[in-house]
């Protein structure tokens, strides 16, 4: 809404011509969640929601606006590329959601340290189970190497979740938890039985069950396998990277990983 109470955007053309549109559009298409902390982008989406929903539906995806205060783009067809979070990313994301719900996080203004995340994961999942989840292909492992791998995988997951807008890496060691994390809690959120909620969300395309996502997960598994000793090196670099650097990296990854399921408009993705 503008200051005089009239709608900010009268037509779709006004939305597309807005300065914020290209960046917001690209971010949404790359899986970014936009919440109230992204003040300018969030305000733009709230104002342009009525125009953008039918627009994105034509691309086979839904612009979702959750009551927790965040937007994201959900592909429902094959026109736009899609991916599923890996098991490691899901594990870290759910642990972060638990931390988001904890009153102790409130004391720190919604931020946690990497050590807290690791400690929380080990406490909830169990240290051995955590090592097994993060080292799925290795039957025998050296304890020290396995723990190092866990740390690296968690750091990598944090970096990816940050590019997707679930968290924000504010300092080298501190992570600000954002409201989009509540998406990880959707299946267990309602008053209905979790199985029913899960089935509904699967039907809506919000998520896939772990048994079904072997194909999509293979992508992330292959990434996991390819990570070697050099991972720690790249990790230390990635930890200090800014968000924009991370994004550009993830772009290049997705470019090489996924088949282009849809052809974006080379003029900036703005459909006419």
């Amino acid at each position: 809404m503008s200051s005089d109470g009239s709608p900010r955007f009268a037509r779709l053309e006004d939305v597309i011509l807005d300065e914020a549109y290209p960046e917001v559009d690209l971010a949404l298409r790359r899986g970014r969640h936009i919440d109230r902390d992204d003040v300018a982008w969030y305000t733009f989406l709230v104002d342009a929601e009525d125009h953008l929903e039918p627009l994105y539906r034509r691309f086979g995806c839904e612009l979702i606006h959750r009551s927790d205060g965040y937007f994201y783009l959900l592909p429902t067809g094959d026109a736009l590329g899609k991916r599923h979070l890996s098991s490691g990313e899901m594990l870290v994301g759910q642990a972060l959601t638990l931390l988001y719900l904890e009153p102790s996080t409130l004391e720190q203004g919604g931020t946690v340290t990497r050590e807290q995340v690791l400690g929380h994961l080990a406490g909830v999942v169990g240290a051995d189970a955590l090592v097994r989840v993060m080292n799925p292909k290795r039957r025998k492992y050296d304890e020290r190497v396995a723990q190092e791998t866990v740390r690296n995988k968690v750091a990598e997951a944090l970096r990816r979740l940050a590019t997707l807008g679930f968290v924000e890496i504010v300092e080298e060691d501190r992570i600000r938890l954002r409201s989009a994390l509540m998406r990880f809690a959707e299946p267990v959120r309602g008053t209905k039985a979790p199985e029913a909620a899960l089935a509904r969300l699967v039907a809506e395309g919000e998520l896939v069950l772990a048994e079904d996502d072997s194909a999509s997960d293979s992508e992330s598994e292959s990434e996991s396998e390819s990570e070697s000793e050099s991972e720690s090196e790249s990790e230390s670099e990635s930890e200090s990277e800014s968000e924009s650097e991370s994004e550009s990296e993830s772009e290049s990854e997705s470019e090489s990983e996924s088949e282009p399921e849809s052809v974006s408009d080379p003029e900036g993705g703005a459909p006419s």
Partner: protein
Amino acid sequence: MNPNRVLASLAQRGPSLDLSTLDLCFLAALHLRAESAAMTSFSEEQLADVFEQVESVLAAAAEPGQPAKQRRSTHAIRRLREQRMIARVDGAGIVRAGEYALTRLANGIIEFFLEDDTLTRDSLTVLTRSLLVGLGEILTAAKAAHTEEEWRMGVISPLRVTMGDLANGIERRQCGFDLQQEEFQREIAGLLHADWFGAVARCQELLESTSGTLNELNQILLRDTHQLQSLLQDIQEHAAEAGVADAEGAARTVVDQVDRIAAWGSARQRAWSEYYQYVHRYLRDVVRLDPARTLTHRLREHLAGTAGKQFALTLASAPPIRLLREVEIPPEEKPPVRRPRKEREQGLADAPAENPQAILEARVRGALAEGARALGVVTERVIAEVAEEERFVTTGRVAQAVARLGDPEATAERAWVPMQDGLMIEEWTVRVVAEPESQPEKEAS
């Protein structure tokens, strides 16, 4: 002041503090008694008395089998004196029982623990008002000051001491407020821990009251710092016009302090605003929507793998748009490295050799041919053509050449004749025995 030098000096002195709870309680008791009874120092008996009271208060925590109280109080006093918490102020040594007072260090520590320096609206108002009044007086003094003494007594000293102390007081209280904020954040988290849903009303009440206090503080800071800056600027201008650099410098120091105070206010306001929004959102989105913490329990179970099927979120992942880069024309290539064609060193060229001895002999021969028959005359002619520094050596060589080319007449007594530059030679009479030109050929043959 060089920080490295200060640190090195501090490290060399090796200061350290080792204060137990009993020590701190003892110091706090002394501090409180000094305040309540308006005492500036304590006798040894009073110290022992206070120590005894403190020990009786902490008796429950005291370990069994401890030594006698009198010995322990003496020990505690000695330790506190070593750590500069208590100072002996009577200067009588062992002549009589001592008088002791708390040091500035001890008072600072105890005030910290007693949270005496919390920034409240009232304390901030009193301090800023005092600053304003004080600066107004200083400005008046600056306008009236003419002599160096007037500037020193009316402007420089009050700015350095009174105004500096008042500004320090505000800054100290701001630190106290920061600590209070931390405590407040802990309190909200603790309230939710203790009573998840029931604490909502209390949390909101706390938030509202604290943000109200902070808003009022900031309004005072914004309004008063503006006036303070204005007064200080006037003082600085007067000092600059009068050419009193010390007064200008003292005013600048207070300006810096006031700037810091104002910056603190805006920074805390911003941080508080973020925290305020976050907590409100948390209360609304998390606590109110999940009064029984069912969500947390379910999620924990799911994460532990004891409930529900594992799932993965679906995300949009459009490939990035391929934008062709602009072709960059490479910069012009540098010329290849080549050997220089010209020889750097010039080659040697043949030049006619110059024999100085032959030249000398030619000159001698010439003089003889012109009819000179005395060594002095020949020498005079030849050395007239050479440089001054070579004349001594040339004189000897002329004598040698004359002896070879002519036939010097040997007499028993030879006269000494003066030459140029203070030289003197033995005079010879010379007979020419052969043609001067044919002489070298004859020698060669």
